Structures are given as C-alpha cells and as structure tokens.
C-alpha cells in the first residue's frame, strides 16, 4: 500500500543530535541506534558538548518559569548555529516541542530583548541570523528524509511482526499543522518500518489518547496515571500488536517500566513489547541488539522478539 | 564587408529590423526619445532580453518635454502654470499608477532585435544600424566567431 507520509527534501548534514536527559538516563540504546542509523543513511551529524538539557521536564512540572527555558533554548540555538550544525534533531518529542515553542516566543521583540540581556552576561546574543538558520526536527523526520535508502539496507525481514504507533502528544498536538502526515493518525513510524515488511496497524481506537505519564502525574497521581496507561494497553492488546513503537522516552518509560505492574494489578495479559522507533528500524537493518539498541536497559524481556526476528544470529551481510 | 551604396541606403532606413546585411553588422543601436513616451509599457513586454525595463519611479522632467496636444502634454501645461521651479529629481510612484513610470534601457543587454521599436506606438524608440566594420562590435562580443579577427 502506498505510504501516506509526505515526501520531504533530504537532510544529509548539518545535524546536531540534541541529546535527551531521559534517553541518556533510561534508554541510551535509542541514542546509539539513532547515531548508527545516521551513519548507515549517510547523515553527517555532531553531538555538541556545549548543548545542555532543554529544561522541558522542569517547565512542564512547574518547577521553573518559562523565562529560564526560553533563555536556555536561545543559548542552545546559538551553540548549534555556532557549531555549523543548525539542524537540531531531537530524540525526544518534549525537547522538540519546547524548543520550537521557544523559537516562536523569541520572535516577540521584548522577550528577545529580555533573553539577550541574560545571554550578554555569557557573551552571546540571539539575533535574526540565529533565528533564521536554526531548524527544529524530530530525529524521525531526519530519518524519513532518507527513507528511500532503507529498502536496500534491510538485513532482517520483520515479516509478520504487527506494529502500532503511540503518537507522541508533544510532537502531534503542540504544532498539529507542522506534523509529517496526519496529526490525528500519525503513520510516520509505520511508514519508516514498512520496507522491513512489518504489518501496519494504522488507526486504532484511542490512538490519540495520552500515555498517562503527564510529567509529574506519574509521581503525584500514580493511580490515575497508570489507569490511563492501562486503557491504552488494552486497546493495543485488542489490536494484537507485537511491538508498540514510541517517539518519546517519557512514553517508553511509562509503558516499559509499568507494563508488568499493570498486568499484575489488573491480572490482564498484554502480550507485546515497547521499543523506540529507531531501535526497531536499526534491528531491521542488522544492528546488534546489545551494543547498538541497548535492549538490556528495557524492563520487558525482549529476547522472544529478538529470537523471532533472528537478531541473535549474526546478521547476513 | 563594406556596404554598397544600395546596402547603405537599405541599412539606413531600417527601423529596427536586424540589418543582417553582412556578418559584420549585427543588430542596431537603440535611441530613446523620452518626450514621446506615454509609458504604455509595450516595449517592455516586447523586449526578449529584458533590456527594456519599467520600474516604479517617475521623472517629472519627462512631462515637461512632452509635445502639446498629447495627454502628457496637457498635464505638463497645467503643471507648468502652477510650478514655482523646475521639477526636482524622480520620485517613487504608487502601485496602481501604471503609465506614469520611467522606462530604463540597458544597452549591454540589448540584442538589437528591434522588437521594441516595432512595438512602440508613439515612435519613442528608434533604431539606428551599427556602423559596419566597427571594432567596437567585436569588442562587445556580439559578433559571431571568426569575424573581425
């Protein structure tokens, strides 16, 4: 079936991989897989030591005012442009949305003046040239820009593996009109995995429902948070998926870490696993499950899936 | 190749057609008469190389040189009656004023095809043939290869 995600101009370089706190601490495999894929698809990128945390977690849990996030986002933009890699590729949808929103707010003169007053103390300025060269992309968008090459690089057929997408709210709902595809039925992930022969699920009931994490709800209001997650697990189980793929470490933590807890507390069976999109794509292209995809960091036992796709034998060249 | 008397006579009264008398002569020089121009823009649309251009400035001096009995002439007459000094330099013209705009001609872009002359309804553009054998033709790089070397 023809893919529905629209074509985009290929991005081959100038990419700064924006490291994510949750990915680095919880699922480093997602970052490693992304780097591995960038090399496979010929995307020139750097990891910039100057780049700091996006403070999205702090802002969304109301710990810090938006002004702080705004200044840090402006600094990160300056740093990226200065390093000659203005295409910031975000591993996590929260970073993507918060930096893009900051970019919009920085178009307002008085906010920019205020931020530049702060940046002056560290000898930086966020001016029009920075504002016009910096670009904000999710890593999946960068991968999609090279998606024609994927078919030729598949080393492990994922035929028969049924995949569903949990669309990250911060990617789909903060800038709904700038989403690659339909913001209320995102098919970007499944279109990326199509060359590997997966069976696509497409739209399913409550696809756009929240994963339940809600930044601090997970800690302040765990009962309600897990109740929402269970609702989603039930829907995905009803679709008989094998893998649910994610675009944000927050969702992956919410599902992967609490999958068995919810199964035990509501004694129901949800026979599927959770992976980042990049991890599954890398596996299909023959990446090593441990050193590249970091499967050991997941709570769920991913061995059955790896056996099923022959990821444990050496990948045929 | 020097022109015969007949050749010179033909080339002489050619209005804009490429004289093409001999390889040595190419196209023609264009001479503009601003006072006759009414700003209709036909030469601009006819010119294939963009040598003729109309921008959104207007020089009132152009008005004062317009002959009586024409639209611009009447305007000039009225303006002259109340003017307190010679018109100062050109000024910018609002978007919807179409015909009061100056025509700019850039000789280096001109291919000498004469289309503007044929298009102009008021004779504001004239074409005079390039003198034969003039080295300047070769210098302008317009002459075909092998000529004048």
């Amino acid at each position, binding site marked *: 079936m023809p893919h529905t995600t629209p074509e985009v101009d290929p991005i081959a370089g100038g990419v700064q991989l924006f490291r994510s706190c949750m990915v680095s601490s919880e699922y480093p495999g997602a970052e490693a897989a992304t780097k591995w894929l960038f090399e496979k698809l010929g995307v020139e990128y750097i990891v910039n030591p100057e780049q700091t945390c996006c403070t999205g977690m702090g802002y969304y849990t109301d710990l810090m005012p938006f002004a702080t996030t705004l200044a840090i986002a402006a600094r990160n933009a300056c740093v990226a442009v200065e390093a000659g890699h203005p295409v910031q590729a975000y591993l996590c949808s929260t970073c993507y949305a918060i930096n893009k929103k900051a970019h919009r707010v920085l178009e307002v003169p008085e906010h920019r003046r205020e931020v530049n007053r702060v940046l002056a103390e560290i000898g930086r300025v966020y001016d029009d040239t920075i504002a016009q060269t910096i670009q904000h992309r999710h890593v999946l968008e960068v991968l999609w820009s090279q998606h024609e090459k994927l078919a030729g690089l598949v080393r492990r057929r994922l035929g028969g593996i049924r995949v569903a997408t949990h669309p990250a709210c911060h990617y789909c709902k903060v800038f709904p009109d700038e989403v690659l595809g339909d913001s209320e039925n995102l098919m970007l992930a499944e279109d990326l995995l199509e060359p590997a022969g997966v069976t696509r699920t497409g739209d399913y009931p409550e696809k756009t429902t929240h994963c339940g994490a809600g930044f601090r709800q997970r800690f302040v209001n765990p009962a309600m948070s897990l109740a929402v997650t269970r609702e989603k697990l039930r829907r995905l189980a009803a679709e008989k998926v094998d893998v649910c793929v994610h675009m944000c470490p927050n969702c992956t933590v919410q599902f992967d870490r609490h999958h068995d807890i919810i199964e035990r507390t509501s004694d129901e069976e949800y026979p599927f696993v959770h992976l980042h999109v990049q991890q599954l794509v890398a596996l299909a292209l023959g990446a090593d499950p441990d050193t590249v995809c970091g499967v050991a960091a997941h709570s769920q036992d991913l061995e059955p899936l790896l056996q099923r796709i022959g990821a444990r034998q050496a990948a045929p060249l | 190749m020097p022109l015969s008397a007949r050749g010179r006579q033909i080339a002489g009264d050619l209005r804009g057609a490429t004289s093409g008398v001999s390889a040595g002569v190419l196209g023609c020089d264009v001479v503009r008469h601003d006072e006759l121009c009414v700003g209709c823009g036909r030469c601009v649309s006819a010119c294939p190389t963009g040598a003729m251009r109309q*921008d*959104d*400035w*207007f020089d*009132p001096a152009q008005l004062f040189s317009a002959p009586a009995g024409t*639209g611009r002439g*009447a*305007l000039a*007459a*009225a*303006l*002259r*009656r*109340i*003017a*307190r*000094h*010679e*018109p*100062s*330099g*050109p*000024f*910018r*013209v*609002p*978007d*919807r*004023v179409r015909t*009061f705009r100056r025509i700019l001609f850039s000789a280096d872009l001109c291919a000498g095809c004469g289309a503007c002359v044929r298009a102009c309804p008021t004779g504001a553009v004239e074409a005079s043939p390039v003198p034969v054998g003039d080295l300047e033709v070769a210098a302008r790089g317009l002459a075909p290869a092998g000529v004048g070397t």
Partner: protein
Amino acid sequence: MNVPVVAEAEPTAPAVAATEVRVAQVRVPEISAAGVPVSEVIADAADGERSIVAFLCRECAYSAADAAGNARTSLPPTIRTIMVPCTGRVSPLHLLAALAEGADGVYVAGCLEGQCHHRVGNFHALDRVAFVRRLLRSVGVEPERAAMFTMSAADTPRFVATARGMDATISQLPRLPRS
C-alpha cells in the same frame, strides 16, 4: 478639524533606486492643525476668496453631500462639487487642470476602502492623488492642495468635516500663483 486622509512621508529619491525601505501607504496626517510649512509666504494670506473643486463619487460622497444639503448644514462656499461615476474616473489631468485654471485646492471623495461599488475604484483614486501630491511637491507647490477622503454614503458628518477641513487647510495657504 479633519485632515486629508492621504499623505505619506517624503521618500528621498537618489537617481538610481537604492535599496530603501519600501514606503508603506500609511494614512498619517502630514500637517498639524496649527502650522503649515509653506516654502515661502506670499504677502497677505486673505487676498480674495479661495476656490476648491471637489470630485465626489455618485454612489457615496455625492449622496452624503446631498444629505448635508437637505440637512441645511452650512458649508464653506469655496467648494464646488463635480459628480463622477466613481473616484476611479478621476485622472491626474483633471486635478492639475482644475488647479491650473483657478482652483486653489482640489480633493476627491469616495467610498470607504472595501466598500466601493466598483470594488477597486477608490484604491486607484488614492494612488493617483498620492501621485499628484508628489508631482506638486516636485515643482514646489504645497502638496496639501490635493487630497482624498473616503466616507460612507450615510456618514454626512464626515463629509461636512472633510469639506470644512479642506477649506481650512486651503485658506491658510496663499492663493495659488499661476504663470
């Protein structure tokens, strides 16, 4: 006191069009009620009655004028009105000919922007009056002698205000000297 609607900042005009900020058609009153920056002041201002010719569009301005008349509003006698089907019909020649043949000021009055019965007639008139004003300035004549106002057919007070405003403006200017 109402002031002419159309005016714009004076753009400097180098011979070759340099890259300068494009002049926005900002409707900003150019002169203050108090003073008039006339280049030179001719002997006495009040020598004789001024004459103003006004081109009013049949659909809006002329009907507002009639309404003012039926309301017996007193208006300055200096203004003489001429009906045109639409302000789009007024060409620069009409305005300059009127000035040349005795008028001390001319103005055009038409429908509000977007309400023109011929959709774009008033926009054309706005641009043409702006052109005439720059033409006047280039020959040293006060640009305030030409103006344009837009009004709704039912807005009689605005017609009265613009008429009186124009009369005040022109009466502060000397009679237009003609060669």
